[in-house]
């Protein structure tokens, strides 16, 4: 029985790799957009998601039952209550709205059903990340499968981006690689860098330096490809890691070249930040690579957030607006029911269940952090890598629809696995 459980737990990273591939497929636009158009069409998209979520839930339930995993009572009660709360919200959230001169808009039943199922799935996903994936840490044989796949995909995307070339319809540097937007491309690069960070920690000797070099290479590529959000997220994360490596610590895995390299690296990033910020001819050029995308995305998304928050009032302030929250701003502004993604993970959580969901989201992150600290804090460098990249990921949560623990999107899935399911299992003795 124990051997069967060990095999099952060993399979967790491989299963998550399959799930990551399933989540990345709907993002692939080039070289041929036929598949993208088909999979994202209204008729297919919902069913594809149901199959994806169904596979995940079946596997998670098997892991749960086989391991007889029981979360501590207090967390179990919280999840149970949030589930019950979600059921109550199904009856509270509006499905019909009157706008303009007494025109009525009713949400399609299928869309409402998918939205509600997605809400419950996100909750279960969070439960799985917090309490089921950590079982994979006990059997770490295949722990590197997902990170390696993520790195290879990121490298392939960078190579293809340079082969395909720049999209000239934008005023700033804009590369999309395999994807329709450079936002998805940036996410793939970010995931690749995070994975390289943990793989470098895990590697020995010269391989570690090769992986660090590749990580820095991806960071530079993010800059050259005009992915400024990714670039500054990665720069911020790597600065934290560099600071940790340079500071006096007992971790014997940190060598002298690594320490001095991190100091030089930190100074270079600071120099680049200053050169980009201080107005000059050079700064203008640098901004087209390191700033324009960030400004463009932030200003366009800011309008969406404002429109959404201005559209909610009365009791919806406490419990969010549910699916109607994606339509209400466009209904009030133009009279047309257009689905408008909220482009902010935190606002999406708030829209789903208001104050309670938002608090639960932050509490889940606190629970995750507490578990991580308990298990990994004694491995200072590993802990720093995980915290730095996850902290940078929260910037993505603000600017896009990614949500830590509450989303099975490609980037959220990879970050959740590396945060909660990837064991360090690396000691100074191993290194020797």
């Amino acid at each position: 029985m124990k051997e069967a459980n060990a095999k099952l737990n060993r399979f967790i990273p491989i299963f998550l790799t399959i799930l990551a591939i399933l989540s990345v497929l709907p993002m692939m636009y080039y070289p041929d957009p036929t598949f993208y158009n088909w999979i994202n069409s209204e008729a297919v998209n919902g069913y594809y998601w149901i199959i994806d979520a169904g596979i995940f839930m079946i596997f998670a339930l098997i892991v749960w039952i086989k391991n007889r995993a029981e979360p501590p009572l207090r967390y179990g009660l919280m999840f149970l209550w949030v589930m019950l709360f979600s059921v109550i919200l199904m009856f509270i959230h509006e499905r019909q709205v009157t706008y303009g001169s007494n025109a009525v808009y009713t949400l399609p039943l299928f869309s409402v059903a998918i939205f509600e199922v997605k809400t419950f799935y996100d909750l279960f996903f969070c439960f799985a990340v917090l309490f089921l994936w950590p079982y994979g840490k006990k059997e770490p044989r295949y722990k590197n499968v997902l990170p390696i796949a993520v790195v290879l995909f990121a490298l392939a995307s960078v190579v293809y981006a340079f082969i395909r070339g720049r999209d000239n319809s934008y005023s700033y540097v804009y590369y999309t690689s395999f994807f329709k937007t450079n936002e998805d491309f940036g996410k793939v690069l970010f995931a690749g860098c995070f994975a390289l960070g943990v793989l470098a920690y895990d590697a020995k000797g010269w391989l570690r330096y090769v992986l660090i070099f590749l990580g820095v290479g991806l960071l530079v590529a993010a800059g050259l490809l005009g992915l400024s959000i990714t670039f500054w997220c990665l720069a911020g994360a790597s600065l934290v890691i560099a600071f940790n490596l340079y500071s006096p610590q007992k971790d014997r895995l940190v060598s002298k070249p690594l320490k001095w390299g991190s100091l030089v690296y930190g100074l270079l990033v600071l120099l680049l930040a200053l050169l980009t910020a201080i107005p000059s001819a050079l700064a203008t050029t640098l901004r087209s690579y390191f700033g324009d995308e960030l400004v463009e995305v932030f200003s366009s998304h800011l309008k969406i957030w404002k429109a959404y928050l201005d559209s909610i009032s009365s009791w919806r302030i406490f419990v969010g607006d549910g699916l109607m929250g994606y339509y209400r701003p466009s209904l009030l502004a133009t009279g047309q029911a257009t689905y408008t993604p909220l482009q902010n993970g935190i606002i999406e959580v708030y829209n789903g269940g208001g104050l309670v969901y938002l608090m639960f989201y932050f509490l889940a992150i606190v629970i995750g952090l507490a578990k991580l600290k308990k298990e990994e804090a004694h491995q200072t460098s590993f802990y720093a890598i995980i915290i730095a990249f996850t902290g940078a990921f929260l910037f993505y949560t603000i600017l896009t629809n990614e949500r830590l623990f509450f989303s099975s999107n490609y980037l959220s899935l990879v970050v959740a696995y590396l945060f909660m399911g990837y064991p360090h299992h690396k000691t100074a003795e191993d290194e020797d």
Partner: protein
Amino acid sequence: MPSSSKKNHFRFWLTVYLLILVIQATSFLCSFYFLAENIRNGNRWIAFGSIVLLNLFSLAAIHFLNRKMSVGTLGSSMQALRTSRFTGAFLNVALASLVSTALVYLIDDVFYPTLATTPYGPLAASLVFLGGILEFIFTYYLFQGQGITRL
């Protein structure tokens, strides 16, 4: 006192305690909501004043009740609840959020509907979230009890 009578005694005071706590949390959240509506539109001063008054009364009541529930047999019976204070605090805010939804619906949409000309969503959402966090912290420490039974 026989044990069944003791149990009933505890159940009665626990019910009163939790009821007052939910009223306190609800009035706290609602006061933030009405404050936001007042700042933007200036149309809910009576509702805001009444709800703040209710909050002050319930705060005073919860203070005395907590003292009562921290001593003697009531205090020892409360230990089970005190160990789950994290969940308790979260449940309190969640329940208060639902009751607030109903209360605001009654005031804003049923009994006294007035036209809010300026959108107040961003301010109200921020203030209510702040209120939720403060209430969570307050309840968490409240559930620790007082005196000798404090955890």
